[in-house]
């Protein structure tokens, strides 16, 4: 075969040699196509697998760790939560609406594939800055796409995050997370066991959509990416909704052994992964696959990424029942082959053999690369930056308002009001708080959900940034009274063949792993997205953490909103002079530099445990973590949410701007009724958590003094206006 051919499909000369070795002959065109998609980074994780092994993945409550379509965590009563996050960055860069929509569709399929009823979505987004019309176009399309697909499915999008930074201009990050609920006895896995069993395709017909999408996701974006547009697929949420209902009915009737969605690399990946997990083989006749277009070749059928399709292995004799259920829901269900004993994927076209490859060769024998790692040169200069000569602001009220209007801190309502976050009537706390809480009908339990990740921190120190992403996600859950249980993650990085990127990737995983261990939140799965570069420039290294947790009694939850006049404000944790990587430094002083705030995981754990305990004992009326923007923004957000002001005095020798805007970690603001104050202070002492009484809720403005001297006093209404109107105004152009 001409090297041109396989190189165009993304295979290297060495990889091609390895294929020849495995097969003991020259592969044909169809086979090369199958190898190229399965050995792409997207499916084969060839650049990341050894590093991902570093993640802690075990805990008694983890029912399914990485390796399946989604992770599963035990939540008691024979129930479990199923969840996973995935990127759709490149498709969204090219076609924002369809790109994000099909991203949602794909991640939802990963959930009901396991037998779970999907119950919620989250979205983690990164865009360029909103002064750029192209960025506004992308954000508009991405949000509309998520809204279109998720709303139509009847899934509430209950939380998420969005950050804006020039590094993401032209290469947005669109990570979607889906969450499902299941009775443990209904769990199904993506395996094709039982020699002689049928293999069926259900759902949409197959067209020429997205051929080589998986390979495309594993390349840098370039001018001619626009030319490769056929890679973009169109989503049909209506059909997916039918597919959900039909699949869950099929599982409830106990008709199947395993199923898997046809995502990236379509029929190729679903079939060989199912066979490989079960140590079986498969014989498939592509002529039997229902088509949408005429004249499709076996190659095209095997590689098509048409959406809303599932591969199913029914129990013996259940084919007809599966077909009947699908028909009731208006879906195709067709037997296209059977499970075989010899571990070989045998693809036929009208009976004629067109490909013959060992299933394991496509999955397990994917080459793995230990990439050379090199600490980037920019780090020393940036980390050692000296901020002592930074001019001190004159008007702190004005600085506060400017920060509140910064799109990274401003209200994200422009986004989430386009999402139906209430459908299913389980959303007890929706977007706008630290974490979303869903009730589990028929129990007293609640599920806590959040996503987090700060690319700027990771750019300045990937290990620390990775650890902070996990710690902050957990902190967000703890502030609502929810105990964190596990994470899924999406690792968005540049080209891993560059030693600097490989280093960032490795460091971030190390940092995340440490935090996961300390916080007892194992990794149950995730997704890697490399090659997030445009014109050779990588986006900020951006690991995104999706976390789930449990609250045993949902009535004991807590929100960030100030509730009552005279509630005492207590700050847990210590404020250090840490403005490196802060929003304040960027917005007011136009610098992205310094070291991110340090993270002491032991302290982090203590602060979070103490917060959850105080909430569980009913001592707390509001809790909110200190994150981007620092303590001043935390106070402002709680005041805005509760439409109630506060009088605050901070005793400290720090410079006022450091004190107010430093993003020191492991800090949580609590509001407690006066009667509970002593109890909370004692609890802090017992746990060794640094604690300070800093004021009380009162009035309709936020007044902050330092050592008794007033530094600002701003109306809550005025803060709210700035905060709420910022993104809508920017989006209006």
């Amino acid at each position: 075969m001409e090297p041109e051919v396989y190189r165009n499909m993304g295979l290297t000369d060495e990889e091609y040699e390895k294929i020849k070795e495995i097969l003991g002959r020259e592969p044909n065109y169809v086979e090369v196509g199958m190898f190229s998609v399965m050995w792409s980074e997207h499916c084969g994780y060839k650049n990341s697998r050894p590093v991902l092994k570093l993640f802690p993945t075990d805990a008694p409550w983890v029912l399914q760790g990485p390796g399946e379509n989604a992770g599963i965590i035990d939540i008691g009563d024979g129930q479990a939560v199923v969840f996973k996050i995935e990127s759709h960055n490149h498709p969204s860069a090219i076609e924002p609406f369809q790109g994000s929509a099909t991203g949602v569709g794909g991640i939802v399929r990963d959930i009901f594939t396991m037998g779970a009823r999907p119950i919620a979505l989250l979205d983690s987004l990164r865009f360029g800055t909103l002064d750029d019309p192209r960025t506004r176009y992308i954000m508009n399309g991405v949000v509309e796409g998520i809204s279109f697909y998720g709303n139509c499915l009847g899934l509430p999008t209950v939380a998420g995050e969005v950050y804006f930074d020039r590094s993401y201009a032209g290469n947005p990050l669109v990570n979607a997370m889906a969450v499902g609920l299941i009775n443990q006895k209904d769990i199904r896995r993506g395996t094709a066991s039982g020699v002689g069993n049928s293999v069926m395709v259900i759902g949409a017909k197959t067209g020429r959509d997205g051929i080589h999408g998986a390979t495309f996701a594993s390349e840098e974006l370039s001018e001619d990416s626009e030319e490769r547009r056929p890679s973009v697929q169109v989503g049909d949420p209506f059909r997916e909704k039918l597919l959900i209902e039909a699949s869950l009915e099929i599982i409830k009737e106990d008709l199947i052994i395993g199923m898997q969605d046809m995502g990236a690399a379509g029929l190729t990946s679903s079939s060989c992964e199912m066979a490989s997990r079960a140590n079986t083989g498969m014989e498939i006749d592509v002529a039997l696959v229902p088509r949408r277009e005429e004249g499709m070749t076996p190659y095209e059928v095997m590689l098509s990424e048409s959406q809303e399709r599932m591969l199913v292995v029914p129990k013996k004799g259940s084919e007809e029942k599966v077909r009947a259920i699908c028909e009731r829901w208006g879906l195709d269900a067709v037997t296209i082959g059977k499970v075989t004993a010899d571990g070989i994927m045998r693809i036929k076209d009208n009976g004629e053999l067109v490909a013959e490859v060992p299933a394991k060769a496509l999955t397990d024998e994917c080459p793995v690369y230990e990439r050379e790692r090199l600490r980037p040169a920019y780090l020393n200069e940036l980390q050692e930056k000296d901020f002592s000569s930074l001019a001190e602001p004159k008007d702190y009220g004005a600085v506060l308002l400017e920060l509140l209007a910064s799109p990274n801190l401003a209200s994200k309502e422009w986004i989430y009001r386009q999402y139906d976050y209430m459908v299913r009537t389980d959303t007890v706390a929706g977007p706008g708080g630290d974490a979303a809480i869903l009730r589990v009908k028929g129990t007293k339990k609640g599920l806590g959900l959040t996503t987090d990740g700060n690319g700027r921190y990771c750019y300045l120190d990937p290990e620390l940034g990775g650890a902070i992403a996990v710690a902050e996600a957990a902190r967000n859950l703890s502030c609502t009274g929810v105990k964190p249980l596990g994470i899924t993650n999406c690792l968005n990085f540049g080209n891993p063949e560059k030693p600097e990127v490989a280093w960032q990737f490795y460091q971030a995983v190390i940092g995340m792993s440490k935090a996961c261990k300390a916080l007892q939140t194992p990794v149950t799965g995730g997704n890697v997205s490399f090659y997030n570069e445009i014109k050779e420039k990588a986006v900020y290294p951006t690991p995104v953490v999706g976390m789930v947790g449990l609250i045993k009694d949902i009535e004991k939850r807590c929100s960030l909103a100030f509730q009552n006049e005279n509630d005492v404000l207590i700050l847990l944790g210590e404020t250090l002079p840490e403005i490196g990587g802060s929003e304040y430094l960027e917005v007011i002083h136009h610098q992205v530099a310094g070291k991110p705030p340090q993270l002491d995981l032991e302290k982090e754990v203590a602060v979070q445990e103490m917060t959850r305990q105080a909430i569980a004992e009913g001592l707390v009326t509001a809790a909110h973590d200190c994150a981007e923007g620092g303590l001043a923004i935390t106070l402002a957000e709680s005041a805005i949410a509760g439409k109630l002001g506060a009088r605050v005095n901070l005793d400290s020798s720090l410079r006022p701007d450091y004190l107010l805007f430093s993003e020191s970690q492991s800090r949580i603001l609590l509001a407690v009724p006066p009667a509970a104050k002593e109890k909370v202070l004692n609890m802090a002492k017992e746990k060794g958590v640094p604690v300070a009484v800093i004021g009380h809720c009162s009035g309709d403005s936020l007044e902050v003094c330092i050592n008794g001297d007033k530094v600002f006093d701003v109306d809550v209404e005025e803060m709210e206006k700035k905060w709420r109107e910022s993104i809508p105004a920017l989006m209006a152009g």
Partner: protein
Amino acid sequence: MKFGVIVFPGSNCDQDVYHVISEVLGKPVDYLWHGDTEVSGYDCLVLPGGFSYGDYLRSGAIARFAPIMPAVIDFANSGGLVLGICNGFQILLEAGLLPGAMRRNDCLQFRCQYTNLRVENDETPFTNLFKKGQVISIPIAHGEGNYYADEDTLKELEANKQIVFRYCDPSGEVTKEANPNGSVGNIAGIINRQGNVLGMMPHPERCAEVILGGTAGRELFASIVEWWERRK
């Protein structure tokens, strides 16, 4: 009193309505499949929200031809209680059981938010536990809720007290700012001339329990039960 919740392909608030009727109200309720042709034995039919047939041509347009619809139309014409919520309202419009039509929201975006509604008519089977002029808070979630009717139809709706809810501000003022979608006259819900078929864009099933942050929706469902018992 027995309720039936109609399930169209793409309905997605069917389970939510079912939950409120069975768990919150404690009343008997069944799902009715769009492919069925019978609705006898039911006292109130609910057409729930969602995206029937993906809402692909116009919302509600294809669902209106579902096999069950002739039975629903007969049921309505003979005085049976019918409640259409969101997509259900759109289907009732397309089916001609209620006058007018829906357009895309004037902001051209989907909107999910709590809205204030002024109760304009408290003498219907669906609103008898409210008071005329009362302001209640019920969430919306739709992309096509921009109600339209021509002048003559509007006059008729007015004259017959068929306008049941209008979007308003917290004090009950019907203002442009309080209108989330551009509906004429801030109309959020209307009833047919006979007073047995209500269509509304807001979702009462989403605010029927304290834990979800509101209970106005429970009152609406309770009104139906109240009216039914009184009638007997």
